């Protein structure tokens, strides 16, 4: 897929609770085909603490409106500056990057999309994409507390949503991987994105139950296009760049202790 560098215009930037924001961007030029699970490299600005671009997963892509949504957690200087962008301001992106999630061949599969915290971001576009292509995805979303459960209504547009919070403030209490849904029903395919320990737990469950499972990784990177070789993950084929060979991997490819 051809990659583009271009300026996008901020359409909306909405704060969500204390630590998150939803940034809606509009393309000034062409809107390239975008697959669920792909990401963009964002140029924040030229401050000394934000020298490199920031890789951010695509939360939602709307080709008709030429809109791209990014769901951002304010954790450092770069993400804080992104959260302060005002409508009309420009943002330079390299887009689209990486390989996305795989789409099953047959429609009658039970697909479960498991997200943890802000890591759930790419699952919205995946869910929408699956639904549009005739699948019936379900979402299992976990977070520390209610305030970290993001966009659950938006997810609801594309399938059933099951929730878990560590403090029990919404949905079942406990880790997402302890949710009763996983005991009750066995999915045919799992997609997971979130903190590494959570993805590891999902991968273990998947391996145990012999369910095919894909995870989306977030290794630190510089270029995003396979040149710097910094974002490598140790796979069964050796070290590979997650920016070009991922960020989505089938757990069978990885050397995780599952």
């Amino acid at each position, binding site marked *: 897929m051809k*990659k583009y560098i271009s300026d996008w215009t901020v359409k909306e930037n909405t704060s969500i609770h204390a630590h998150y924001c939803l940034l809606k961007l509009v393309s000034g030029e062409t809107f390239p085909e975008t697959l669920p699970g792909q990401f963009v490299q964002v*140029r924040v600005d030229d401050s000394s603490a934000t020298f490199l671009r920031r890789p951010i997963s695509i939360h939602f892509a709307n080709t008709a409106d030429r809109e791209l949504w990014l769901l951002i957690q304010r954790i450092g200087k770069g993400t804080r500056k992104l959260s302060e962008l005002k409508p009309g301001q420009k943002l330079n992106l390299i887009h689209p990057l990486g390989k996305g999630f795989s789409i099953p061949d047959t429609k009658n599969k039970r697909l479960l999309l498991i997200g943890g915290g802000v890591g759930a971001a790419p699952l919205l576009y995946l869910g929408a994409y699956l639904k549009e292509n005739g699948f019936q995805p379900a979402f299992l979303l976990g977070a520390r507390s209610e305030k970290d459960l993001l966009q659950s209504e938006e997810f609801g547009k594309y399938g059933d949503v099951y929730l878990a919070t560590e403090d029990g403030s919404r949905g079942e209490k406990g880790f997402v991987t302890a949710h009763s849904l996983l005991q009750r029903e066995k999915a045919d395919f799992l997609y997971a994105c979130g903190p590494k320990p959570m993805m590891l737990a999902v991968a273990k469950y998947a391996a145990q139950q012999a369910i095919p499972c894909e995870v989306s990784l977030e290794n630190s990177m510089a270029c995003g296009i396979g*040149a710097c070789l*910094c974002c490598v993950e140790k796979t069964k084929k050796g070290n590979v760049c997650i920016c070009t060979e991922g960020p989505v991997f089938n757990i069978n490819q990885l050397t995780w202790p599952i």
Partner: protein
Amino acid sequence: MANLNIDIGKLHLKNPVLTASGTFGYGTEYADFMDLSRIGGVIVKGTTLHPREGNDYPRMAETPSGMLNAVGLQNKGVDFFISDIYPQIRDVDTNIIVNVSGSTIEDYVACAEKIGELEKIPAIELNISCPNVKQGGMAFGTTCAGASEVVKAVRKAVRKTLIVKLSPNVTDIAEIAKAVEAEGADSVSLINTLMGMAINIEMRRPVLSTVTGGLSGPCVKPVALRMVYQTSRAVKIPVIGLGGISGWQDAVEFILAGATAIQIGTYNFIDPTVSRKVGEGINAYLDRNGFRSVGELVGAMERG
């Protein structure tokens, strides 16, 4: 339109802008963003005799106006390069230069000999300055004797233009440059990365798996510029300057300091089209200031 042609040994460049090894892949990674024929050349990533897996993750840390890396020469080896990469890039309309690295003199020579046989590779950049590999090139690059030894051996083995990439982690880089010039190097390129470190204070451990790594980006530019200045006054062979170039203004600084050509490294990650823009900016600067060729600008400072 000024004349931007520059010669480095037998290597002819249409303009003085090269991309630095390890920052531009094999060029193909950037083909979506720019026309590679617009720059003087692409120096492809460090190639070794045998395949190397490189260092463990994490390999990167962002620093003020720069970054640390500890890739450790990950590559599939020279035979893979010849069989799988070379056919894809041999017909690109720019100079493809291969950066050759190794752990022993024998490896350097064997790898360089294989590259030396490739018709469409006009030059080799010999990396004697990789800070991220145990018994890697930097052991050769930090003493005159070590540098001489490896350059002498490789020079015997290859007739192509031989550029030697120098380490800045030394007391006197000009002495090293003189040593490799004496052994027949056609050019020196500098600087490779400065050895640095970053610590995660919440985890209380080094950010990089290798503890230390190589620092690059605008933060190193003043050091690189000083070393290019010192080296270009110490040797007769052309000096290729690099270190923190992020725009044409930086490139002009390096050329004024004495560089015959320049390389763009880390900034390719921030703006994948920067190398094309730098060439255009140098050209406009030359026109605006009445220079007929970029050669006239090399070392053209009023004093110092």
